[in-house]
Every structure is written in C-alpha cells, then in structure tokens.
C-alpha cells in the first residue's frame, strides 16, 4: 500500500525550480509595472492639498496616512516611486550601453585600448561612489538630468568588467577559432557565437543596475544634490518628512521607506530570477 501511495505522490505534477523562478520573475515585473503605472496616474491626487485632512494617521481612507498639507501619502509614495523607476531605467540603460561598448572595446582592440579602459574602470571604482555622484550631479546643475547622468557615469565599471571578461573568454573558445578556420567571417562569428553568449550577461547586468540606480537617486535627492522639490521623487519625500519625524509623525517616513526598499528588492528579484532562467547551469533545474 505505502509503495503505491508514494508512487502516486511522485506522479503528481509539481512545480519545478524553473516554473517557480518564472513565477517570481513575472510577479516582480507585474508588481513593478503596477507601481510605475499607478504612480504616473497619481499626479493630481499626489499634489492635492486638503486642509481638513492634515497629519492623519494611517487609516482605511489613507493607508499611508496624510502629511502636513493633507496630501495622501500613498499617492505621493507611488508617484515618487514611479519617478524613481523612470530615472532608474534611464540611468541603467545609459550605464549598460556604456559598459557594453567599453567592455567590448577593451577585449577586442589590443593591449593599449585594454590598458586605457582598465585604468578608467579603476579610477571610477576607486573614487567613493557617493562622492562621485554628488560631484557630477552638482556640476550638471542637479535635477533629473544631473541625477541620471551621475548615476549612469558612475555605475558602468562593474558590468564593463564582466563584459570584457566574457568577450575575452569567448574569443579563446575553440569553437570560435574553428569557425574561423572553416572560413566564417568575423562579423558572422560575432553575430552567431559572441552575441548570444554575451547578451544574457548584459541583460542581467542591466537589470541589476536598476536597484543601485534607484537607491542612489534617492540618496542624492535626500542629501539635496538630486531632484528639485517640484519633482516629488522618493528622496524628496523622505528628506521633507525628516522635519516632522520629531513631531511623532512616523508614517511619513516609514511607509515611503518600506516602499522604496520593496521596489529595490523587486528589481533584485527580477534580475536574479532572470539570471537563473538564462544561465545554462541553473536553467534546467
């Protein structure tokens, strides 16, 4: 009897690791999309001030409470997060493209190019991140433009190193060399062998840049070197609520802070589940 039941249990179609990872990935993407879209629809509500609803504790009507001008904190948080997500995407795209170009250049054009790019990587990595961000953002006149460029310019080195390593490795792969000896053109080899090898790394690296970009945008803004007060990024919300924290209005900082944290973790989940989906070592688990 017991043998049969065990067999039957085993036969039950269960979710394997791949399915689970896929579900995590979709969950993260959908939730982030919801945040971004709902945030961009919140524009009006987020700036509506109501003198009859000032400083309210979290309740059914206002799940995140209201602030000192009677603005709904949930709407403000969503709006702030969607701004942060847009900035994160812009900065990561620029950063990833920079990383891709420099990584491929370093690996493909001889020792001198490699040395110059390696030096650049070391310089950017050597300067404390936040300091570099502050300087660039300040020099570019702060605001959205300054933040995006500052985050993009300071985040490419890690990914550039990964891409450089991958290109170097694939260039030495016997099958690439054999393809050349079989008369394949360099461009065709790049398209058929190299791109499919590098692209997954690039994509995952790009997505994992998001959380950094979002956090650094928030940090910059919080310190006053980032977005302007009329662009209600999550950093602005946090730095403004600082003044009211001592008055006991804890919800002004706790909920936006938690929301920021979960957004960052969602991006991280998205990146790491995507990696395990396309990485050949874990793809078939």
């Amino acid at each position, binding site marked *: 009897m017991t043998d049969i039941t065990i067999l039957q249990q085993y036969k039950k179609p269960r979710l394997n690791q791949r399915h689970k990872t896929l579900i995590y990935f979709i969950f993260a993407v959908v939730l982030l999309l919801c945040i971004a879209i709902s945030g961009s629809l919140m524009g009006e509500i987020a700036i509506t001030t109501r003198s009859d609803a000032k400083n309210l504790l979290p309740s059914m009507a206002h799940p995140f409470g209201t602030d000192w001008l009677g603005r709904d904190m949930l709407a403000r948080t969503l709006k702030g997060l969607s701004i942060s997500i847009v900035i994160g995407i812009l900065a990561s795209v620029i950063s990833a493209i920079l990383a891709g170009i420099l990584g491929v250049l370093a690996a493909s054009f001889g020792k001198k190019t490699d040395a110059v790019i390696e030096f650049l990587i070391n310089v950017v990595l050597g300067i404390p991140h936040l300091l570099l961000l502050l300087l660039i953002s300040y020099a570019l006149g702060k605001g959205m433009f300054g933040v995006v460029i500052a985050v993009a310019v300071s985040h490419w080195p890690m990914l550039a190193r990964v891409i450089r390593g991958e290109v170097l490795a694939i260039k030495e*792969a*016997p*099958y690439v*060399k*054999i393809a050349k*000896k079989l*008369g*394949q053109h360099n461009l065709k080899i790049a398209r058929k062998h190299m791109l*499919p090898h590098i692209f997954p790394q690039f994509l995952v690296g790009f997505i994992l840049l998001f959380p950094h970009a979002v956090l650094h945008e928030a940090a910059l803004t919080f310190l006053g070197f980032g977005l302007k007060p009329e662009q209600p990024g999550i950093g602005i919300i946090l730095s403004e609520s600082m003044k009211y924290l001592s008055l006991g209005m804890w919800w002004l900082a706790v909920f936006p802070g938690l929301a920021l944290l979960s957004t960052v973790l969602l991006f991280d989940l998205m990146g790491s589940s995507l990696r395990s989906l396309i990485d050949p070592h874990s793809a078939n688990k």
Partner: protein
Amino acid sequence: MLLEAREISFGYKKGYHILNNISFAAESSERVGIVAPSGFGKTTLCKILAGYSKPSNGQVLLDGEDVYGMKGYHPVQMIWQHPETSVNPRLRLKETIAEGDQIEQRIINALGIEHDWLNRFPGELSGGELQRFCIARALGQRTRFLIADEISTMLDMITQAQIWSFLLEETEKRKLGLIVVTHNTALAEKVCTRIQILTK
C-alpha cells in the same frame, strides 16, 4: 601539397620556450605520427601547424605559403582533443556543421553519424559521438591536411578502431595528409607511414 615546419619555437612566457627548433615536412599523401610525452606541448604544436597560433620563431609553410594568417577555409584542419569545447553548446549540430564545407553523405554514414543527431544540441550527445561529428566536420572538400590531436584517447577501443580505420581509408582515397599527434607509440606505429619522436 607539402606542409613544412621550419625550425619553429614557441613559448607562452617570454624567454621560456616549450617548443624548440622543431622541423619536419609532410606530403599530402603521407601519414606522419608525431609522438611526444605528456606536457611536451603536443596541442601547442598542433595549433601552430594548423595556423591557430603564431610561432615565436620559424614558420609553417603550406606549399611555400605561411599558414598563419591564411584567410577563408583553411586547407589544414585540426581535430581537437576535446570535442565538447569545439562545438558551440548553444547551437544545434546542423548549424555548426553548416559553417564549413558541405560534408559528403558517405563520410557521415561511414562515421555512424545518425541524421537525428544534427537536430540536437551538443550536450545531448556523448563524447564519442561528438568526436565523430567533429571528425566529419573537418573533412570538407577543401581539406588537404588533417591534424589529429589525441583524438581517440577518451574513446572506447571499438570506437577507436572504427575511427582509425575510417581515417586510413579516407586519407588514402582522397590523398589527404594526416598528422597524428599522440603520446601513444603503438597507435602511431599502427596508423602512420612515418614516425617522428620528439624529445626535450
């Protein structure tokens, strides 16, 4: 055709050569065995002969033309020791085999390559099956010399015998030069018309 190595030396580090002043020549009707102990630089020698690496000194000439830097389909084809790294794991075998010359059906049959393998990925074949595929791939129309770098060391006896008897027949028929680089003196004596033993 004549494949000729003229006093080739090679070192991975400056001032330290693993290959020193090696010279030999092979006609395309010959089967030459090069026997060397483990760690001697057999694979390095193969790569130089097939034009994959540039020797630090000396030259490898095919009818007077330097093999390093030849463009297009290379008449000196090398079969690598490890078949699993010589095919792209992301491509189906039919895409890989399409990279070179058209391979005659006769060769595919003789090596026991089933048609269904070509629709599979390299990971779905065994090492021996993959090695037979790699041998077939190297036997394109324009191949004049075949360099075999320990191609049968990881195969079972029966497959080894099949592969070598096929290669003997094929090189004889097409007047292909075969250079067998191995540590196995017995194998080289069986297969080759001439043996050169390399010592330090």
